[in-house]
């Protein structure tokens, strides 16, 4: 049994608030503690999601949040895994709980973001692929998203109207989400009339960067039982696998892939039949002992509208090339067969990197408890998250009731 209990969740609303990330993190932490009915002095482990944009306090986020909440002697850890930071932080907390070394862990991620394209660190950094892709190619994050989108068009017949339909759906999903930054209906024509950033993606196909914070109180099942949490939402799996060689799909921020099949016979690794993103979800299913057919809803990383369609296939929710058909049939809308991004997704939130994977977990928790007011997936019992970030990071978390 490797399950742990989600005792409480909390968030600071996403937006462009222009305040310190610590303030958001403490707000979310207090909300999660209140939701759990756990007093801060009872927390014996704090895990922070690192933010690379907010100075030293961001590099040691676990300690920063612990100090801001008032030193209570808890153990501390800080995780960084790009977009998967929150899931890795959660995994760190889970490991200590399952080892019997901690009973109650508080996991917090928060960020304050700049305007516009995410750019690399300053200076001349000729050994940093994240710097080189801008200097040598002018390759921004949306350009990577656009490569994946274009492949869907050329290989599977997707259209810009399909991508726009993802935005329309997610905008509608997020209308009543109190933590969403954008709560407004969007018409397909609005998406298609917005400026093209990286062909075929328009401005409204691409997620913004946001300030925000999310927190989760994680406990052992024994602790949950002893503290009148009779039927908590459980963490069934946390996958944070890395790619396997050769990773043959171009990933941000790389300028190239591994060589597929150029090694001489006898020097090849076992043939990996799954792409990296497929393996992220596969490992989560294996750990939970379930399959895609058991899932009631999914929160996936829609950095672009088209990426949501990729993730549906990567998670096995449909066959390769069939995501548009599900979308068009309304299967991924709340009320449909397999609702995707009922929170409104990144389309309604924008990305707050160290908080985002935790925000996905918060949403699944509310959905599985039946508390997702205005966006509830009726009868949801099992939910899955997925995301991917730079440098071989990615995550998938499975929760069930």
């Amino acid at each position: 049994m490797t399950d742990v209990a989600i005792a409480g969740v909390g968030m600071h609303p996403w937006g462009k608030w222009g305040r310190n990330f610590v303030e958001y993190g403490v707000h979310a932490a207090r909300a999660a503690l209140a939701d759990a009915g756990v007093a801060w002095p009872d927390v014996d482990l704090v895990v922070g999601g690192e933010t690379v944009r907010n100075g030293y306090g961001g590099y040691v986020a676990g300690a920063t949040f612990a100090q801001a909440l008032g030193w209570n002697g808890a153990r501390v850890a800080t995780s960084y895994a790009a977009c998967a930071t929150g899931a890795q932080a959660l995994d760190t907390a889970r490991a200590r709980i399952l080892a019997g070394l901690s009973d109650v862990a508080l996991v917090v991620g928060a960020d304050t973001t700049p305007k516009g394209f995410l750019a690399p660190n300053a200076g001349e950094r000729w050994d940093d692929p994240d710097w080189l892709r801008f200097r040598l190619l002018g390759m921004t994050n949306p350009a990577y998203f656009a490569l994946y989108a274009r492949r869907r068009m050329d290989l599977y017949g997707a259209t810009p109207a399909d991508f726009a339909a993802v935005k329309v759906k997610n905008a509608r999903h997020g209308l009543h989400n109190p933590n969403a930054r954008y709560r407004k209906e969007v018409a397909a024509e609005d998406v298609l009339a917005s400026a093209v950033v990286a062909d075929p993606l328009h401005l409204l196909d691409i997620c913004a960067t946001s300030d925000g914070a999310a927190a989760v109180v994680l406990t052992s099942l024994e602790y949950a039982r002893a503290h009148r949490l009779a039927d908590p939402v459980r963490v069934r799996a946390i996958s944070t696998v890395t790619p396997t060689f050769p990773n043959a799909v171009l990933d941000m921020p790389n300028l190239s892939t591994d060589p597929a099949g150029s090694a001489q016979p006898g020097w090849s690794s076992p043939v990996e039949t799954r792409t990296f993103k497929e393996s992220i979800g596969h490992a989560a299913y294996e750990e939970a002992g379930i399959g895609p057919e058991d899932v009631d809803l999914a929160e996936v990383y829609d950095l672009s509208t088209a990426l949501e369609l990729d993730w549906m296939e990567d998670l096995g929710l449909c066959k390769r090339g069939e995501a548009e058909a599900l979308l068009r049939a309304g299967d991924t809308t709340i009320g449909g067969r397999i609702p995707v991004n009922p929170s409104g997704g990144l389309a309604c939130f924008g990305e707050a990197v160290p908080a985002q994977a935790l925000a996905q977990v918060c949403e699944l928790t509310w959905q599985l408890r039946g508390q997702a007011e205005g966006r509830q997936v009726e009868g949801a019992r099992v939910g899955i998250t997925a995301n991917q970030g730079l440098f071989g990071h990615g995550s998938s978390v499975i929760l069930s009731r």
Partner: protein
Amino acid sequence: MTDTSPAIDGWFTTGPEPALVGSRCTTCASTFFPPTAGFCRNPACDGQEFAATELSRRGRVWSYTDAQYQPPPPYIPRSDPYEPFALAAVELPEGIVVLGQVADGYGVADLAVGREVELVVETLYADEAGERTIWRWKPVENPVVEPVETEEADQ
């Protein structure tokens, strides 16, 4: 202008038939680009020596896009006002997909997944010392002939 030189040393050759320069592991023959040194990244191989090797000059488009907004620094725009350019990820016979800008005069309308392209070297930007060049992918005008013939390579 005083001279013309690559924007980065050792990644590509210049001349009439320019090519990317990869690193071939002398133990397992895995070929990497950009050039690498130190330890082979094939987990089944403990090789530590590499030989510089020119990669195929032609490949097929894996996907493509463009940059309609000016990228942030350290990108150095070549013109003011900014002029958009196209980008392509190209699958080489070596099994590597390599990103690059698309040659001057070509845009997304000239590309398709699977289309054959050829490596050229063009100006990326100019600084006080002269023009800095970069590899680019140029659509092959007649994509029906056998790949990697040399007859039209110096067009």
